[in-house]
């Protein structure tokens, strides 16, 4: 257990999780498991560890295994370090039909990383995801919380160059 994540659920992290707990019936704290994992992940450079999942379990009164199940079932939780900017690349049909796959190959080339890897400077990682529900703007990707639609090589590279 790394000391830096000891008592992770306190201060702002705790306040944010508590706001979600309040959205569910009093005897259903477990319902806040998904938001809690997301918040913890966001505050931990974008990925979870066993220690962090255990803390979520303890905080919500869940068995650790129940939290691991949730954390590994849903695609948006990461269990390995990711880039400062994680590029969620849509792999599904409408994006594919409009050149999404070729564009992802160009992206890999530009960043010098393969899908699933983190760039040497830690700035970028690419993650293949399924349909993001914005197929009218295909091809698309999501970086952080933002969607970027109608991507071309030019617009994508410009976007990346502008990220600090």
């Amino acid at each position: 257990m790394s000391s830096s994540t000891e008592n992770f659920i306190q201060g702002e992290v705790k306040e944010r999780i508590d706001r979600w707990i309040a959205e569910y019936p009093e005897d259903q704290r477990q319902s806040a498991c998904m938001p809690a994992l997301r918040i913890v992940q966001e505050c931990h450079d974008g990925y979870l560890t066993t220690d962090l999942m255990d803390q979520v379990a303890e905080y919500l009164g869940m068995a650790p295994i129940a939290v691991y199940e949730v954390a590994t079932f849903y695609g948006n939780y990461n269990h390995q370090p990711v880039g400062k900017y994680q590029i969620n690349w849509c792999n599904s049909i409408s994006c594919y039909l409009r050149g999404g796959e070729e564009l992802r190959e160009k992206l890999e080339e530009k960043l010098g990383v393969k899908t699933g890897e983190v760039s040497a400077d830690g700035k970028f990682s690419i993650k293949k995801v399924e349909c993001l529900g914005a197929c009218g703007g295909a091809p698309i990707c999501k970086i952080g919380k933002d969607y970027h639609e109608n991507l071309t090589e030019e617009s994508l590279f410009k976007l990346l160059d502008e990220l600090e």
Partner: protein
Amino acid sequence: MVYQNENCFRLNHLENSWDIETYVANGGYEVWKKVVSGELEPADIIEEVKESNIRGRGGAGFPTGLKWSFMNREAPGQKYIVCNSDEGEPGTFKDRDIHRYNPHALVEGMAIAGYVIGASQGYNYIRGEFWEPYQVFKNAINQAREAGFLGKDILGSGWDFDLHVHLGAGAYICGEETALIESIEGKKGQPRFKPPFPASYGLYGKPTTINNTETLASIPMILAKGGKWFNDLGVKNAGGTKLYSVSGHVNNPGNFEVRMGTPFKDLLELAGGIWKGRQLKAVIPGGASTAVLPAEKALEMNMDYDSIAKAGSFLGAGSVIIMDDQTDMVKAMKNLSHFYWDESCGQCTPCREGTGWLYRMLTRIVDGKGRPEDIAALKDVSGKIMGNVICGLGDAATIALTSAVEHFEHEFVHYIEHGCSIYDRT
């Protein structure tokens, strides 16, 4: 003339259509006021919704009025209204725009539905990637609370109703209604055996009604203008308007709200026609889970349940995926099969194993290593998934593929015999 934007998208042309001021200035929350004041009674609302002939917009097309009538409003105990905004079926992106452009119609629709079924609490399950739509919806909830349309003792009526959001985290299966319930309960999203149905054992074991975003957001207009008005916009067995998400090889992809029964040709024209001056090859009319139709069949059909069924497919969620005449059907199917393999929840063996099997076979074929028996094997594996699983995901994984093999078998054969696509020049 093609009529557009008469229902969920009626405010889209206005700046700040998401704002409560705009919504109220255009008749918003008038129905809700009549409901809580007792002027419109639950039984009458159900009759009106039945008359509108609206069928669930989430894909299955179940009559909404009938679904609501399964709930016993007077039964004691907590009940829930749940909105399904998980929107993960490839090709579907309409609910995202309802949140962005008309969130108050959804708030009002959920409030009304909640009142009818006797639910004082509602949850909107929004896929986690939809951060911006979530923010807009959250703002709408806050505005409605401030205006006294949500909360305790609404407008002095004694009725309480409040709304919450649950955010998904990247799992298509949570669009299946019982997986969605499991997910709100803080578990992995694996569908439940049915029965019991959610109306008797739903969220937290309580009676629950689940409807799609578009279904619920249509309710205020149906009640404002009458079930007959809505029904008459559409055609037989398909009342009203429908949001069609058009994507793929068109010049102007996007969402189009048109009347049920609008000719496919007209919808294609609204979407700017086929891109690059090419011809239409095939259409998936209702999202990745529906059968592929060759151009000649698609060009003859109208956009309603019966006409699309007659053409050999399904209206589904109204997600129209267009493929031009340069589309490699085998590769397209490989892409779809990856989706289902990735998204299978793993609970039922035929789906968990079968989807992987289909994906690996299609990969092998595309890689030029297909075997003569592969086409029969694709059909065989598909047949062994179909109908042998708890939910619709497994079935869905086979439908587009089976139809593609049926209509475009020569492309699969060419890959197997020549190791390349019919479009590859050797």
